[in-house]
């Protein structure tokens, strides 16, 4: 057995032997559950894995792009976690090109994210999260657009459910919004190949979601079929704007709006969204993204579903009465 395998096995055993504790794990805030999303991030540290996320992306104007990605999120402590993301990309010729075969394929740059849970306010269904996203330049294939430089993106995330509205608000109480804002800082200011500046970007995204599980358990049980009661219709949007070091380039905001639906189960969720570019710089046709997302804290409740160090914090309501 190689040293690499021994290291991996040791890591696995360490994770597996972590203590059992009261766990809140994936994104519950009071009675509200924020699902993992496909284009933006939920506002919680968690033990989760997306395997896979597949996307047909029209954002690449030079060809048809297909992506297959994996995200692995692990809590180190109750409030601190990391996310590792990797995406394999295949770029084919444009639909009207008339040729066959891929133009290029390979991995995008590896992305790692460190996240810290700032707040979970159960009464107001409010969650705040701070994170730093590291995109490791040169770790991916240049042929699929992976940059040779790295980027660092400090990001804040929030989630707010409207369950704290008065009962008279009715169905509105099942809505929730999430959002994130980040500032992307590249490790170089000049692309030596093209000779053009590498801009600093403002990245932001948001989602509006209507939770059928919340409607049934906290607002009104309409006696709908079980499948319907597991659905969360959602609209996500994500945008990028160059805000500094953009000399000589056009100022163009790019982004997509993604309407879709997420089915939430006890151990996993499945999401499907359309990817609608907001302008021609963002894409030339509508794409699609689908994701199978596993709740590791529910699948492995006594091992990998626990933080590596320390225990989860019981809520006030867990105190014996």
């Amino acid at each position, binding site marked *: 057995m190689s040293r*690499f395998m021994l290291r991996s096995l040791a890591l696995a055993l360490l994770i597996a032997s972590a203590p059992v504790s009261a766990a809140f794990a994936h994104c*519950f805030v009071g009675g509200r559950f924020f699902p993992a999303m496909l284009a933006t991030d939920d506002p919680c540290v968690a033990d989760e894995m997306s395997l896979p996320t597949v996307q047909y992306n029209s954002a690449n104007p030079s060809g048809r792009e297909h992506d297959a990605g994996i995200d692995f999120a692990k809590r180190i402590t109750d409030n601190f976690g990391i996310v590792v993301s990797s995406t394999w990309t295949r770029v084919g010729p444009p639909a009207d090109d008339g040729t066959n075969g891929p133009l290029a394929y390979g991995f995008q740059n590896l992305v790692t994210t460190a996240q810290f849970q700032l707040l979970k306010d159960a009464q107001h269904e409010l969650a705040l999260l701070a994170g730093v996203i590291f995109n490791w330049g040169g770790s991916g294939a240049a042929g699929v657009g992976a940059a040779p430089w790295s980027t660092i993106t400090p990001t804040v995330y929030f989630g707010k459910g409207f369950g704290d509205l008065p009962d008279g608000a009715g169905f509105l109480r099942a809505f929730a919004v999430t959002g994130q804002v980040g500032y992307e800082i590249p490790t170089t200011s000049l692309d030596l190949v093209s000779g053009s500046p590498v801009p600093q970007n403002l990245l932001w995204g948001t989602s509006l979601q209507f939770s059928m599980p919340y409607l049934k358990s906290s607002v009104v*049980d309409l006696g709908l079929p079980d499948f319907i009661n597991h659905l969360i219709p959602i609209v996500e949007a994500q945008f990028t704007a160059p805000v500094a070091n953009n000399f000589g380039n056009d100022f163009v905001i790019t982004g997509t709006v993604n309407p879709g639906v997420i089915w939430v189960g006890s151990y996993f969720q499945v999401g499907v969204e359309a990817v609608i570019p907001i302008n021609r710089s963002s894409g030339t046709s509508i794409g699609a993204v689908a994701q199978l997302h596993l709740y590791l804290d529910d699948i492995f409740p006594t091992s990998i579903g626990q933080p590596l160090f320390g225990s989860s914090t019981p809520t006030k309501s867990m105190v014996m009465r």
Partner: protein
Amino acid sequence: MRNIIVTSMLALLPFGATDARAHAFLDHAEPRVGSTVQTAPRELSLSFTQDLEPAFSGAEVRDANGTRVDQGKAKISGSSIHLGLKPLSPGTYRVQWHALSVDTHTTEGSFSFQVGH
């Protein structure tokens, strides 16, 4: 890095996967969530999607003034909570519950029901 992650995940598969359980969601309540009942119920029943740890699960019912109208300690068996109620007059009542599933996942929630309107 990618190889380390994948190998670690595969190595973990034998651990814990067979005893998989999940968060306890409220599956059904009687009186129903958000309902109006003409006859005052004598008991609140809550059914969850997972078995509960009785010592760390419970519920309470309060009237519009915030006064508790339940009879105290709930009976918890398997995935259900049963809570006796005092005689209820017409009005709106709020149920607050918390649950610890047997694999130590916590959940909580609340809902209202009305009597006699």
